[in-house]
């Protein structure tokens, strides 16, 4: 993975971006785009092989738990542990609030190209998304806590404004693209959500790019989350994304990497191990 601290990596190139003073965003875009002629073709048997491997593991789970047990829903949180600062059973930790707010702003940035007042816009976005309890909770915070939250959100927003590329509509950018892969006849469901997907799917050729946003890290966990999502996309469409990008909104650190078969096999292996030993009994 090419990991970049917040400093220039590439010289400005001619790119299909809206005119905006976001040079680092252009670099991310350039890294995401890469050489369009060199996009990898994956073995068409890869997805089938991975699915067969996972189905075997899932059927073992069903055999152990019984066919009438409720389905096991397995997301990155269960598989890789919660992000830093998130506590089990604490639905409204500061880190979770920040994550929801920053992700709401990210969607606005990708689709509208900007925002005015970070905290207010994020709250409006969450309210329209039906997250009223969360909005009420934030609005009921004591003024100092709310002010601190507003400053933190503004800081993350500034990073995104600088680093997130402005995607041309023809790239088909879509945010919060949910994936849910049923195994063992739906008794085990692997699920996750891409923060951002761009590109048009082409059978046999890896043609999608995914960008993940991390508000709290740790970096290694977030990177594996993207590998997990790449695996789910492989199972959904038969072809993995060809490139993944991860942006840490607290620091501006970002990285871009090509998806390789070993990433998918490693995360599938981890999944099988989790299914064999995980706390789903």
């Amino acid at each position, binding site marked *: 993975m090419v990991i970049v601290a917040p400093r220039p990596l590439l010289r400005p190139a001619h790119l299909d971006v809206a005119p905006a003073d976001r040079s680092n965003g252009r670099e991310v875009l350039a890294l995401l785009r890469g050489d369009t002629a060199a996009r990898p073709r994956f073995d068409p048997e890869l997805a089938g092989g991975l699915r067969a491997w996972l189905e075997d593991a899932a059927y073992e789970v069903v055999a152990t738990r019984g066919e009438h047990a409720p389905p096991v829903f397995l997301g990155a949180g269960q598989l890789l542990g919660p992000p830093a600062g998130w506590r089990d059973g604490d639905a409204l930790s500061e880190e979770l609030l920040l994550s929801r707010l920053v992700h709401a702003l990210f969607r606005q940035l990708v689709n509208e190209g900007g925002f005015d007042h970070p905290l207010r816009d994020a709250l409006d976005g969450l309210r329209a998304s039906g997250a009223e309890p969360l909005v009420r909770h934030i609005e009921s915070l004591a003024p100092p806590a709310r002010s601190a939250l507003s400053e933190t959100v503004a800081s993350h927003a500034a990073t995104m404004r600088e680093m997130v590329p402005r995607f041309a509509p023809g790239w088909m950018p*879509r945010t*919060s693209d949910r994936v849910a892969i049923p195994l063992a006849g739906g008794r085990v469901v692997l699920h996750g959500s891409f923060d951002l997907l761009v590109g048009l*799917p082409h059978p046999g050729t890896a043609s999608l790019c995914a960008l993940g946003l991390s508000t709290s890290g740790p970096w290694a966990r977030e990177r594996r989350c993207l590998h997990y999502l790449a695996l789910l996309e492989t199972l959904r469409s038969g072809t993995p994304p060809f490139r993944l990008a991860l942006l840490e909104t607290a620091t501006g650190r970002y990285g871009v990497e090509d998806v390789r078969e070993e990433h998918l096999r490693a995360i599938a292996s981890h999944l099988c191990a989790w299914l064999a030993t995980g706390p789903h009994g």
Partner: protein
Amino acid sequence: MADRLTDALVAPLADVDPSSWAATLEEAKGTLAGLAVRRAGAGPFRVTGHEIRAALSSDATELAAQLPFAWSARTSRRALGLAAVRLLVAGDARSPVEAVRARLEESCHWVRDGSPCASQLDRWLAGLSPAGRAAVGAEAVTWATRLWCALDWPALGSTLTIGRDRWWDSPHSALLALRGRAEVRTDRANLVVLSGPRRESVRAELALVTLVDSLRARDGAVPGRVVGWWPDSGHLVRVEPEPAVLTLGAEAVGLVLGAAGAPVRSAA
């Protein structure tokens, strides 16, 4: 995905024995005629795929416990997404982002100008802040992009209907109506975008689409196949127009009415 889903929609239909079809359709009509429905003062009863899912699925309790309807990014994404796909198919927009934006602007214009076209959804959208509308738009863009990218549209032919539900009103009881929902209709197939888990009830949900089309056909024509598609997983389920599907649909309607506790009496 585009190839597999499009192939499912354009594949030739198998021949159906006309007499067997006609006989089964008459049976289904008889079953429905026998169900004059009155739900304890609740007025007309509409059977949709959702009711069939709720009546037949193991997650029925969960479905029944859903909150009352309220507009949100999630509940509006289908309507806005379909409008966007219509614009894309017509060549009036070049991308889902552009199409959704046009649809949102249309809402605001209609409401501002007091147009009779303005719906409850339009009024809700017009009342949102720009950031709220952006969140709604983002959800609709994702919905529309998934559908737009999933199909080889030129291969579907020119007789496309995007997102028009079809209703059948019982001639025997003003209290009973059935709704067949499909996102894309061609002259030989219907595509239904599915959400939620894969479930045993899905064939009955899709059979309702076949049943409604069959009941509406004036000449007893056999309708197209129904293809259910989960964008989340890429899975497809095909329901071919066979006599057994009519029976399945009519039985599912009967189960819904039974599950609703509706008193059943003869309409004759």
